[in-house]
């Protein structure tokens, strides 16, 4: 018996078709994973199935749930299913919890109001749910006191408290590191074992492997191929799927460094960094040479970005020395920000920003055009603002901007964190080329040890300082809030 | 109801008679030794009678027997002397009198003067000469409570806006008809008018001209209006080089369209054609040549003084523009209005006027400093029920609210004689004539006092001397 079947779901924005007719079914105990390019319509498809599409979009098609069949366009009809039939897992768990309510009541209220348990029993059930998820101590905390992973688990408990058998999760591991990703996968699979249905959207191949079941690949709003997850991942049929899988860092070949190292561009000796009263880096010594790539890894919040700030003189070290090579202009030291959108003036067309930099550094008039070609960027992008180009494009434009300043050193902070594997591979490849051709010294930060291992000549792994394990969750939380809030206010 | 609500513009500052006494006498709470009728004739008050010695220096006031203060203590010659002693130590008319001694005697108070003052009883009829019980005063002489002898006794006093009083059962005179009264200070004329209209107040004192027109059509209230001894006048700095000749002042006077002003702005029956209004009885001189409106004559007078029109129509002489500043105050809402009209009427004869509507004290202060040019003001000639007190301080020879930079020995002599009790109608007529000819101040209008009484309240009269609301005489109609 199928738990859910969706037939010919399309999503339209006015006359623009964002999701072509797509059909899918969910069976008990058999998860469905959706993979696909950024912007291919994965989220919209899931939303159409759950009746949670934004009001500006229109959907057609039919969704059958629990023997009832509902037109996908009729949002109101889905209202009664939420919590009772479908557990909707939010994309951003820390934004999905009421910031002014403690964790336990957010779970208990669903037990009481949806499942109809009396108040006391609902509280007991909520406490047991949280206990089972290893959150016993967290039940009286407010969401802002929870780490991303904890918030994720509270949200799952709350979403499932109504007793819905079907779980739909959109990128449940976005922004999480490997350990945390596995925790979440375990949780999702645990629910599945009791005969429920599970739909997971992701572009993390490792997660897809872990979930198993069946896989569906989307591109441009249409299904490219479907099949058993293990089968598709090991023997993809479509060219795009093949490319997607091939772009995974796991399958990159190791980069070969040029034989002779260049001069020392930057040197840090016995560097000790603290931030907010916390020791981040203790007695670190490193040397950056022209043409070489220094890989920097470490868990989230261990101080990778802070190290970059220190190397670029934007953060005063507590102790230690940073020496720049003599004769280099101050602007020869550049940085690629972790969040590229935030590193450009929000309201200025990109072309104008680039021209300002070119003028300041007396770059020849055709320099921008040349670099655009080299980075495979369309000149038309220059007329747009930072918010209206894709993440991959902007990350390359940031690189272009840094190149205009004739840098000798670039600190590249997670330059691919939000990209799908193909775009990620392109950018890293480009950086490596630059190091070789221009004799650039590069510090490359990533939380993905595989990626660093494939690209870097030297690797520094920043350890999480002792006694800061608990602070780590707080750091994640703060960062994510910091990134999300402006988007809402805007 | 059994309570009568009074609304008037005056705020209650404190129980102190020197600042707020006029409210207490108006409300029938405190009384003075001497009383006055609407014609200004003096009547017995807390004193049943008075006499003066041959030389005019010793006055004897026989005090009323069996008068109780509101705290139950009896009024005695000593308490009366004490109250007056405190009163004359504070700013007020009494302070200016040449009193040598106040002596209590059995059943009477004897006042010894340094020089004769014929109007002494009138001075004692003024609100600040009210008699309060000894317990009303604090150790420094400031009043801390209103403990008077009147028909009403204060039950609650909440400065700055309200007061309640009930009939005092042991009052020496007849009991009032209305057992309880309240007083509310309402600064804005339009709010007072609305209170009258909506029935929130039974007795509303002082209405603005427009309201009178409106309320007189309403069935809910009755409007009472009476001419009072108060004039709206233009105080002139006669020492100012532009204004130091009587011709210049007459030219300004001729520029003023008093009839138009009275009808359109003040809505009075007529404008002022001399300084003293008919309400001042024998001071008003019907034989005087009335002041007229004649801009052409005004222009001719100014031309005679050497003023020639400039390109913008404003006159100038020896390179100086005929530009003057007129100081006035908004406490009486009609004053800025009249100022605005004057500005245009003076412009018509080539005089430029800048209006400075400011605190009322700027006029006497400017007088003292010699900086005032023109002042538009409302002068009450009945601060005491005998105008001689005001005439003396304003025109003999000059004073803060009267003549400025102008002296006239004849007026001074006449007024001082009148004050001593010598002379009569002829002297008064002569004073009026001199003022009419010299125009140290330019009269503009005679005031009308107006009040609104809710229909169904009988017995309301207006006291032109602004001493009493006449509450004890009021009655709710059946």
């Amino acid at each position, binding site marked *: 018996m199928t738990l859910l079947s969706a037939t010919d779901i399309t999503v339209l924005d006015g006359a623009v078709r964002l999701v072509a007719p797509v059909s899918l079914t969910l069976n008990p105990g058999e998860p469905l994973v959706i993979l696909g390019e950024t912007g291919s319509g994965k989220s919209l498809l899931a939303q159409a199935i759950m009746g949670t599409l934004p009001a500006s979009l229109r959907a057609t098609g039919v969704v059958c749930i629990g023997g009832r069949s509902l037109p996908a366009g009729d949002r109101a009809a889905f209202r009664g299913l939420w919590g009772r039939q479908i557990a909707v897992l939010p994309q951003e768990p820390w934004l999905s919890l009421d910031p002014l309510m403690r964790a336990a009541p957010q779970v208990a209220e669903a037990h009481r109001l949806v499942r109809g348990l009396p108040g006391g029993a609902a509280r007991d059930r909520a406490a047991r749910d949280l206990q089972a998820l290893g959150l016993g101590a967290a039940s009286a905390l407010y969401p802002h006191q929870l780490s991303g992973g904890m918030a994720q688990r509270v949200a799952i408990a709350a979403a499932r408290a109504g007793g819905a058998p079907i779980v739909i999760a959109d990128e449940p591991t976005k922004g999480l590191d490997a350990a945390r990703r596995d925790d979440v996968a375990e949780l999702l699979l645990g629910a599945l074992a009791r005969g429920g249905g599970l739909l997971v959207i992701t572009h993390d191949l490792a997660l897809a492997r872990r979930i198993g079941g069946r896989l569906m690949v989307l591109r441009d709003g249409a299904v490219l191929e479907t099949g058993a997850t293990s089968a598709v991942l090991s023997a993809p049929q479509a060219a795009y799927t093949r490319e997607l899988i091939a772009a995974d860092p796991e399958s990159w070949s190791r980069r070969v460094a040029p034989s002779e190292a260049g001069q020392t561009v930057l040197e840090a000796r016995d560097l000790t960094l603290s931030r907010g009263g916390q020791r981040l880096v203790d007695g670190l010594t490193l040397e950056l040479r022209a043409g070489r790539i220094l890989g920097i890894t470490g868990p989230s919040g261990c101080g990778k970005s802070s190290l970059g700030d220190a190397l670029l003189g934007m953060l005063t070290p507590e102790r230690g020395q940073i020496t720049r090579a003599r004769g280099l202009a101050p602007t020869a030291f550049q940085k690629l920000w972790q969040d590229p959108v935030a590193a450009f003036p929000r309201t200025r067309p990109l072309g104008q920003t680039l021209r300002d930099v070119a003028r300041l550094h007396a770059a020849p008039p055709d320099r921008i055009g040349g670099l655009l070609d080299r980075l495979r960027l369309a000149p038309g992008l220059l007329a747009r603002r930072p918010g209206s180009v894709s993440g991959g494009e902007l990350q390359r434009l940031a690189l272009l901007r840094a190149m205009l300043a004739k840098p000798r050193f670039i600190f590249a902070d997670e330059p691919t964190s939000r990209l799908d594997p193909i775009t990620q591979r392109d950018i890293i490849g480009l950086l490596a080329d630059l190091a070789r051709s221009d004799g650039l010294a590069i510090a490359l930060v990533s939380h993905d040890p595989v990626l660093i291992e494939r690209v870097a000549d030297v690797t520094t792994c920043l350890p999480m300082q002792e006694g800061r394990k608990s602070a780590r969750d707080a750091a994640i939380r703060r960062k994510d809030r910091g990134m999300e809030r402006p988007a809402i206010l805007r | 109801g059994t309570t009568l609500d009074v609304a008037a513009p005056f705020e209650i500052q404190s129980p102190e008679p020197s600042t707020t006494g006029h409210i207490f006498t108006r409300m029938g709470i405190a009384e003075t030794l001497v009383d006055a009728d609407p014609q200004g004739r003096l009547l017995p008050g807390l004193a049943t009678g008075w006499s003066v010695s041959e030389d005019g220096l010793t006055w004897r006031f026989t005090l009323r027997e069996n008068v109780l203060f509101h705290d139950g203590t009896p009024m005695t010659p000593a308490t009366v002397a004490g109250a007056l002693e405190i009163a004359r130590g504070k700013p007020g008319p009494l302070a200016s009198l040449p009193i040598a001694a106040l002596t209590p005697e059995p059943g009477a108070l004897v006042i010894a003067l340094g020089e004769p003052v014929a109007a002494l009883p009138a001075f004692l009829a003024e609100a600040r000469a009210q008699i309060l019980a000894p317990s009303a005063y604090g150790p420094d002489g400031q009043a801390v409570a209103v403990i008077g002898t009147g028909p009403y006794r204060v039950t609650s006093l909440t400065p700055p806006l309200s007061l309640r009083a009930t009939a005092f059962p042991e009052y020496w005179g007849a009991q009032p008809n209305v057992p309880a009264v309240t007083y509310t200070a309402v600064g804005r004329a339009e709010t007072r008018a609305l209170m009258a209209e909506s029935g929130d107040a039974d007795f509303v004192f002082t209405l603005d001209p427009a309201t009178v027109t409106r309320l007189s059509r309403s069935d809910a209230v009755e409007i009472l209006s009476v001419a009072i001894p108060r004039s709206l006048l233009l105080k002139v700095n006669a020492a100012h080089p532009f204004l130091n000749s009587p011709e210049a002042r007459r030219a300004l006077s001729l520029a003023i369209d008093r009839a138009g002003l009275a009808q359109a702005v003040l809505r009075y029956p007529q404008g002022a054609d001399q300084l003293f209004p008919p309400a001042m009885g024998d001071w008003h001189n019907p034989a005087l040549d009335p002041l007229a409106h004649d801009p052409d004559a005004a222009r001719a007078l100014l031309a005679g003084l050497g003023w020639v029109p400039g390109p913008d129509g404003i006159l100038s002489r020896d390179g100086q523009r005929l530009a003057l500043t007129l100081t006035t105050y908004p406490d009486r809402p009609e004053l800025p*209005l009249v100022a605005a009209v004057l500005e245009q009427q003076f412009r018509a004869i080539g005089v430029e006027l800048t209006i400075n509507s*400011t605190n009322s004290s700027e006029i006497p202060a400017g007088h003292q400093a010699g900086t005032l040019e023109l002042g538009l003001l409302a002068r009450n000639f009945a601060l005491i029920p005998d105008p001689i007190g005001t005439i003396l301080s304003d025109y003999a020879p000059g004073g803060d609210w009267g003549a400025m930079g102008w002296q006239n020995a004849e007026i001074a002599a006449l007024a001082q004689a009148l004050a001593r009790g010598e002379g009569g109608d002829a002297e008064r007529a002569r004073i009026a004539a001199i003022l009419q000819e010299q125009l140290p101040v330019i009269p503009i209008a005679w005031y009308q006092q107006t009040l609104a009484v809710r229909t169904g309240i009988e017995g309301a009269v207006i006291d032109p001397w602004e001493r009493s609301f006449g509450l004890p005489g009021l009655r709710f109609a059946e």
Partner: protein
Amino acid sequence: MTAAVLPRALPTGRILVAAILGLVAAFALLGPVLVPGDPFAQSLMKSLAGPEPAAPFGYDHLGRSLWHRLVHALRLSPLIALAAVATAAAAGLVLGVVAALRGGWVERLLVILADALLALPGLLMVLIVLAIMPGTATGFWAGLSLVLWVEFFRLTRATARATLASPAVQAARLLGFGWPYVLRTHLWPEIAPLMLTAAAFGTATAIMGIAALGFVSVGMRAPTPELGLMMVELLPYWREAPMALLTPVLATFALLLGLTLLAGGHRT
């Protein structure tokens, strides 16, 4: 999310705002051209008379043409208000940027000062300034500027702090740009729309304040035509000549409505 709402809500609002403010401005500028006349000239005989070709809105209690007084008033109050808002905005902008750039005790001092000023009712401060400079446009300008700058300062400082600490500014500095460039290209675009909103609200507040003070007789000096003063003067005649009173009331209302819509439209 909220963006989905705005596009539909704005255009009607914009048109309304433009229509109202345009009408008021056109009247203030072109009024005397259409019907020549003098706002001060009195003819007592025409006191409170109805409209006629020379005075399309009729006459006030002193027989002055309401049309011309209104024209004058609609120039005066907005002029004072705009001058005050411009001063306040400039002061707030400069001090706000200085506070955000310099930090330290300069910032703390300015913040404390602004907080304290915020705690004092604006009307009171204008009253105090007006007590020192009575009845003059300069007094109003000074008092209102003193009140209004706080809002601009707070806005600027908050925005500047966030912006100047942003990676975008760090990047510009790394690339070698000076502060003038940063302020122009990074800060100004962020602040400008906020400033516009605050300026529209500030202008409305100022006009309302001038009128309110006129109402408690601390406003402009008669016979200067000012909206609040006109209302006070005509109020006693509300029953005799309701249209005369309504004229300045409606003009004020239109002006304030236009400005508040302008400000509110941006804020939501």
